[in-house]
């Protein structure tokens, strides 16, 4: 087990916290997507840490999970961005429901 607390663990926790904060406080959908991606990176960081702490070399399974996760996150975010583009460029009238208060 690593002797001193691995700095990246704190980084992962920080990413998760900031991601959650961003998701909750931001109203603009793009910023919220950013926050979600940051949260995602935090999760991937956790996975990699878990992989690294296994004795006997990095564990390939969490790595595969992260890779799949990244691809899914990117494709979902791309789709989200397309949605944001469409919702923003529509004529302002019915663009945004008064959903975020």
């Amino acid at each position: 087990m690593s002797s001193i607390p691995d700095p990246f663990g704190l980084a992962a926790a920080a990413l998760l916290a900031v991601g959650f904060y961003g998701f909750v406080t931001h109203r603009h959908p793009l910023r919220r997507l950013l926050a979600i991606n940051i949260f995602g990176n935090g999760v991937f960081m956790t996975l990699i840490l878990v992989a690294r702490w296994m004795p006997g070399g990095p564990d390939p399974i969490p790595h595969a999970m992260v890779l799949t996760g990244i691809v899914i996150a990117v494709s979902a975010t791309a789709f989200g961005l397309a949605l944001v583009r469409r919702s923003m460029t529509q004529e302002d009238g019915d663009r945004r429901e008064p959903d975020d208060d």
Partner: protein
Amino acid sequence: MTLFDSVLALLIAILAWRSVTAPDLYRGIVLFITLGLMLALSWARLDAPDLALAEAAIGAGLLGILLLSTWRVLQRAAPRQGSDEPASYAVRWLAVVGSTVFGGTVAVALYGLQVGSDRAGAEALASLDLAGIDQPVTAVLLNFRSYDTLLEMGVLLMALIGALLIRSPLAYEPWHGDTAVESPLMSVLAKVFTPIVVLVGIFLVWAGAYGPGGAFQGGAVLAGAGVLLLLCRRLYGDADATLLLRGLLVLGVTAFIVIGLLLMPWQGAFLAYPPGLVYVLLVVIEFSLAVSIALSLLLLFTGTHAVRAVRS
């Protein structure tokens, strides 16, 4: 080395915080791209080379350019909307407290984790030779947990269909050659860089078998090349897709499923490769995946059904 790691970790934390609380959207996006690069670096440090490549290529690169181009579209549509006021004071304060507690719990949980040695990973490493590929991550991706990879390709396809349905493409109109807009350097960029990038991409796909790399990273780099050509007005997004293009798009998934279904009666299990043919099959699958991923990511970027070269 821990000093470097701690600095890197601190940098990541600060970048993330600044990116989220950036006053305006553009600054947020730029900081997010830098964060992506820093993450790639940190994952390299955490000896996960494949992931560093993937993060750099997909997370920072492709996602970055997507974010920037979306921002530009938003900028043109509704200039002032980037920096609208955040939620009420109470919400923000509660969110801060809540997320710090959450972060703290996760940190405590992580460090309290007693990671044992009898893990699926150890077993994976042990039976690596059966997998026909000696790069562990690719072996897991294509052989041990190939089902996940297959489904993931499905996700990519669905996201693409979704993006197409929205019909708000980033397509750049075909270039009509008025030099006032275009700088001469663009053609240099296209001519010099594109072959190199494509070469690196193909190399990455091939290198997946024995070292860091693989279909995803290679595919992403190839997509990057495509984006470069788009930006340099050599390619443009087009509405009607030919059968061939759609074929290439679904090549990855179909190849995977067809191979799995065909082999099932003999091998007794879905996606169980005969020992002899393992390597060949995996390479075939790897390349078809790479092609599909590259094309999907490119079309995800343009948001159109197809891309077509510019007839100069």
